[in-house]
């Protein structure tokens, strides 16, 4: 923005109204959000009720051609919408089942990042001083390491721990990946929580609460946290998309879950035969892509709705 005598440019927006350039953009963002919501809703319904839906085949159902199974024996078409994979399973059905574990990992990892990062960020922002310095060291080091490298290290280390200590038997690959992604998500959440807390802490209603004799814990719980929710929700939705994609990337590197499928695992399994049976790779990719973009579209809309600057994210 430049300042000239042209008053439009220097004018603060006269009313909560759109300028002509903004309007189409805003409308398409709104539309984008609904497309995203529609996709995720459909996916969630299919996934939850996969067993009851007639058009979704069973997880282990193998399709036979002439009474025999075979690698990629059916291409996309009326019999199997998205063809079959290397072991004659219906790709569409498997994509739906894979969504379960993919989304569960994504949501759990987001919750871990949100809770840990949020608490860390609020403490840093509210108390400042040495707490802030310590917290900043943690987040900065998390951000300084290449995320992929960090993920590899964490997963391998947890593999070892799992073997070493019997009480860690619950630490399956799914949990390892969930924890890893959750840890990776801490830093961004902590950053935004800290920035927002600092902005809120000097607001007069927070000062008013303190002048009423409220304890810090109460000030945080009653005055700060409710005002953090919009921003954190926005970051969480966008972050969910990123984490779903990250899970795919990890699976592609061979750090996939073992038995229940994820999209990432399907993509990494199918890509070897990409030339022979493109459908076994492309359709899981499509699911992943649509889901990630849906989260982003919704996140965008939320960010605008709550007026959260991208710089803060």
């Amino acid at each position, binding site marked *: 923005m430049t300042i000239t005598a042209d008053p439009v440019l220097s004018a603060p927006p006269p009313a909560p109204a759109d300028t002509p350039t903004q309007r189409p953009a805003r409308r398409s963002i709104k539309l984008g959000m609904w497309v995203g919501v529609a996709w995720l809703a459909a996916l969630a319904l299919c996934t939850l009720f996969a067993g009851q839906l007639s058009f979704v085949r069973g997880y282990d159902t193998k399709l036979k051609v002439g009474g025999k199974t075979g690698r990629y024996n059916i291409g996309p078409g009326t019999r199997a919408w998205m063809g079959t994979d290397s072991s004659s399973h219906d790709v569409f059905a498997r994509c739906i089942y894979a969504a379960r574990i993919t989304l569960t990992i994504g949501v759990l990892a987001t919750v871990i990042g949100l809770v840990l990062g949020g608490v860390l960020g609020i403490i840093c922002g509210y108390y400042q001083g040495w707490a802030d310095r310590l917290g900043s060291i943690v987040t900065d080091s998390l951000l300084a390491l290449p995320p992929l490298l960090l993920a590899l290290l964490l997963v391998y280390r947890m593999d070892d721990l799992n073997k070493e200590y019997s009480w860690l038997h619950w630490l399956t690959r799914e949990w390892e990946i969930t924890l890893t992604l959750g840890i990776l998500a801490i830093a961004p959440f902590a950053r935004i929580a800290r920035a927002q807390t600092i902005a809120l802490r000097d*607001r007069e209603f927070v000062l*008013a609460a303190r002048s*009423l*004799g409220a304890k810090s814990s109460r000030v945080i719980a*009653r005055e700060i946290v409710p005002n953090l929710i919009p921003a954190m929700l926005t970051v969480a939705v966008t972050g969910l998309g990123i984490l779903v994609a990250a899970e795919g990337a990890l699976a592609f590197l061979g750090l996939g879950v073992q038995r229940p499928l994820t999209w990432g695992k399907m993509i990494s399994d199918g890509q070897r035969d990409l030339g022979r049976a493109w459908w076994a790779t492309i359709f899981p990719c499509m699911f992943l892509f649509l889901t990630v973009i849906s989260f982003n579209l919704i996140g965008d809309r939320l960010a605008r709705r709550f007026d959260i600057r991208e710089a803060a994210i």
Partner: protein
Amino acid sequence: MAGTGTAHLRNAADTLLRVENLVVEFPVGRTGLKVNAVSGISLDVLRGETLGLVGESGCGKSTTGRAIMQLPRPTSGSVSFEGKELTSMGGDQMREARTRMQMIFQDPISSLNPRRKVRDIVMEPLTIWKRGTKADRDQRVDAVLEEVGIDPQRAAESQPHQFSGGQCQRISIARSLVLDPSMIICDEPVSALDVSVQAQVLNLLEDLKARYGLTLVFIAHDLAVVKNISDRVAVMYLGKICEVAGSDELYRRPAHHYTNVLLSSIPVPDPSIAVQRHPIEGEPPSPVLPPPGCRFHTRCPAAEDRCAAEEPQLREIGDGHFVACHFPVHGGDAPVAVRSSSSAG
């Protein structure tokens, strides 16, 4: 203006608040420099009195108000409230003491949590301190809301943004009243409001003060507003007090040149009065590097060499009228703005 010194403090039995040599400094980043927001001021307020603190932005008046509340704690100096020293109190004691004094802020909307119902906001102090039973608390909140002119029913259903600025300020006042404090610090409570609403809020404060026997510290930059509500006024400039006097006395016979300038800068709502200004050029110097001697000497129309070298102390020039100036304005030289006008009023 510089005035340091405690000559103006009274030794009355019913002193509610006594501030001595209050200093508040903030570091400037990591430069090693500091903002001298408040540089050794002393004040006292008697029970039932209204003290006005007036000055331009950056003079430290709001910082003083907050330092009295220990939010944040002052760098040095003493704040004694109801006979107890606040600066040495521990956290829990301090929280308890804060219930006896309350604060109202400038921005009526920003001082209410946007995500809570208005009634809960007003109830909050009682909830924090678990006063009485639920029924007692409800009754108390309803009574206070009625008293400030807010419908309790509507308050239960609405959030702050559904009220106008003036109504939000009433809500803030209600919140500060529910704990029955003995003192309220009002930090520019009407400067964000339209004149017509400002009059409503000022009248409300006067009524509540009479009803509850409140003591007020009223911080504002508008001298006419301060004069209207205060018994005694302290004029501040760049972290120091320049003049303290009873409010009618101060406006009748301003002794400090800065007070004079402030008074003559007030726009007079009457075009038939040709205001004779005592103009000063420029704006206050930075509180990071305040001028030596009298802090006002760089802009003072009557400054002499002595003013730059020696800091004036507050001294009495009339009954309860104190000024920190080597060469005060002589009596009788009242600013032209203070003339009876025929049409106004």
